[in-house]
């Protein structure tokens, strides 16, 4: 737990997350995939729920793109892949839900500017219980290998 807190410190400092008692959701390792202005991209992170209560992610907001939606990539028959909007994502008590490539993502649709390697971008995730939590994500080509 202390490790987690230490890992989150820079994030908290930069993004000014409300870290009060009611915010039981922690957002770890947020990153955005490189993409060009006018195009789309995805935001990934880990949602850690340390509380005894489930929480639900409903929505996301960001000034980085014209439209922001919670999405999932899914497999279809014959090696086909698709992507669709999901209305909500439940984070069960004492668990971690990972938004990652080929899986859940927050889709940033029609970027207002280029997102180049090491750029930073802010987004807000909106939870049923934890409310609005701000994150600052770093732009990468691919995730770091060990997390």
């Amino acid at each position, binding site marked *: 737990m202390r490790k987690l807190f230490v890992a989150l410190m820079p994030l908290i400092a930069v993004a000014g997350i409300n870290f009060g008692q009611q915010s039981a959701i922690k957002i770890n390792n947020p990153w955005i*995939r*490189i*993409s*060009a202005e*006018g*195009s*789309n*991209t*995805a935001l990934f992170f880990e949602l850690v729920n340390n509380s005894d209560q489930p929480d639900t992610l409903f929505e996301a907001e960001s000034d980085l793109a*014209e*439209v922001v*939606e919670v*999405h999932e*990539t899914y497999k*279809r028959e*014959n*090696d*086909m*892949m*698709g*992507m*669709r*909007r999901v209305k909500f994502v439940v984070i069960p008590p004492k668990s971690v839900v990972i938004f990652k*490539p*080929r899986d859940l*993502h927050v*889709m*940033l*649709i*029609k970027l207002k500017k*280029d997102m*180049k*390697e090491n750029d930073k971008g802010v987004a807000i995730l909106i939870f049923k219980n934890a409310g609005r939590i701000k994150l600052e994500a770093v732009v990468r*080509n*691919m995730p770091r290998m060990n997390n």
Partner: protein
Amino acid sequence: MKKRIGLFFLLIILLTISCGDNFPVIEDLGNTDYRLVDQYANETVFPDNIKGKIVIAGYIFTNCPDICPLTTNNMRLIQERLKGEGIEGVQFISISFDPDNDSPEVLKKFAEIRNLDLSNWTFLTGEKPVVDELMKHVGVLAVPGDSTVFPSGKVSYYYIHTDRIQLIDEEGKIRKNYPGSSINIDEIVNDVKQFVR
């Protein structure tokens, strides 16, 4: 006589481990001409433009936020591996199945922002009917699925599509299909080595 039979089997084994049987011809593109344009808007005829080279082809649309960037990144990793091992004569191509959005300019930007090495990598797009015909030929399906409605009322569709990287030989024959976004880099690098002489 026994010796002869032994030799016979040895020959069979040698034939089997040489290219032919491991890489059956999936489709022959050799006798066709698809008029396309590259990321610099130069007209080009596919697969004429790549004949005589081993080709690693990926199929993408740039509005794709997840699968196609993964496929593209895997091609970059393959390119780096081959370069690192001193294997030459391999050409990379990424073909868009969404030409309505993917103009040469958009493709150029897609490659540039990722810092891709375009010395042996070309992005291709073209007229919709031509691209559709080509996709049918190479066995890549792309159908509009979910969509996003913009505040302006404009609708943007996301393709449900075949997740594909292909190995094409010097004669324009498709020899192997791989899952683009989750390809095993070692596997395709080893396969390429069997074609490069």
